């Protein structure tokens, strides 16, 4: 799924990485606990979260994720936006809640079946 499709499906605002909306996302993860996010590596993933602090951006960066969607109208700080720009992440914000946002993307075809074990 292209990031611009995620933006449309979730009626989201683009906060960083406008020029990378054409990039593809192959899997997704929804969580407010960063250690849970860090537990499983996914390919070119999007992270949906209601958590707002700089560690969300660092977690996404460590996992080589390509996009972060902030749910429930959460807005990242200017520092987070600048960190995201530095690391080439797309940041989106939607008014939808976590459950609804995940459901919309899942029914839209973004099925999180590409999880792979970290240690190969």
């Amino acid at each position: 799924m292209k990031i611009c499709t995620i933006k449309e499906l979730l009626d989201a605002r683009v906060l960083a990485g406008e020029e990378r909306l054409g990039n593809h996302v192959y899997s997704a993860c929804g969580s407010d606990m960063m250690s849970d996010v860090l537990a499983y590596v996914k390919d070119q993933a999007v992270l949906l979260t209601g958590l707002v602090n700089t560690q969300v951006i660092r977690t996404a960066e460590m996992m080589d994720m390509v996009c972060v969607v902030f749910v429930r109208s959460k807005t990242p700080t200017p520092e987070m936006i600048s960190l995201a720009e530095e690391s080439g992440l797309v940041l989106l914000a939607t008014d939808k809640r976590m459950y609804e946002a995940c459901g919309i993307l899942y029914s839209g075809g973004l099925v999180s079946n590409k999880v792979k074990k970290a240690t190969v």
Partner: protein
Amino acid sequence: MSEALSFRFSVDGENFTSAGQASVQVKKNLRQLGLDPEIIRRVSIAMYEGEINMVIHAGGGVAEVKVAEEFVEIILEDHGPGIADIEQAMQAGFSTAPDKIRSLGFGAGMGLPNMKRYTDYMDIESKVGEGTRITMRVNIT
């Protein structure tokens, strides 16, 4: 045999916002060295979890990363309270982190298990009241 490259970082224990900066830098350095992306990802996630742990539990510490021919080694050393029961601390879901840390997205009891999962070797030396030294290795070949 060439000498191992090494990077050393001081981890600020007072500032949760800046936690992870050393891991970000290590990721950049390893990319410049042209290492396999999967290896880089495993090293940086393991180090990031360790860095967060040092900030949450130990008031900071020192992180050292060595790139040898056969593996990347990460050594994290702190002078925090130490780990009383390492076996218990290694169990997924066990955490002594305060609620304040949970509200920041960490402290789910996944840090140490994740560090073990992403590395090929992990050793914890810890003395209560003195500190903790964690050595991790990710094989390159």
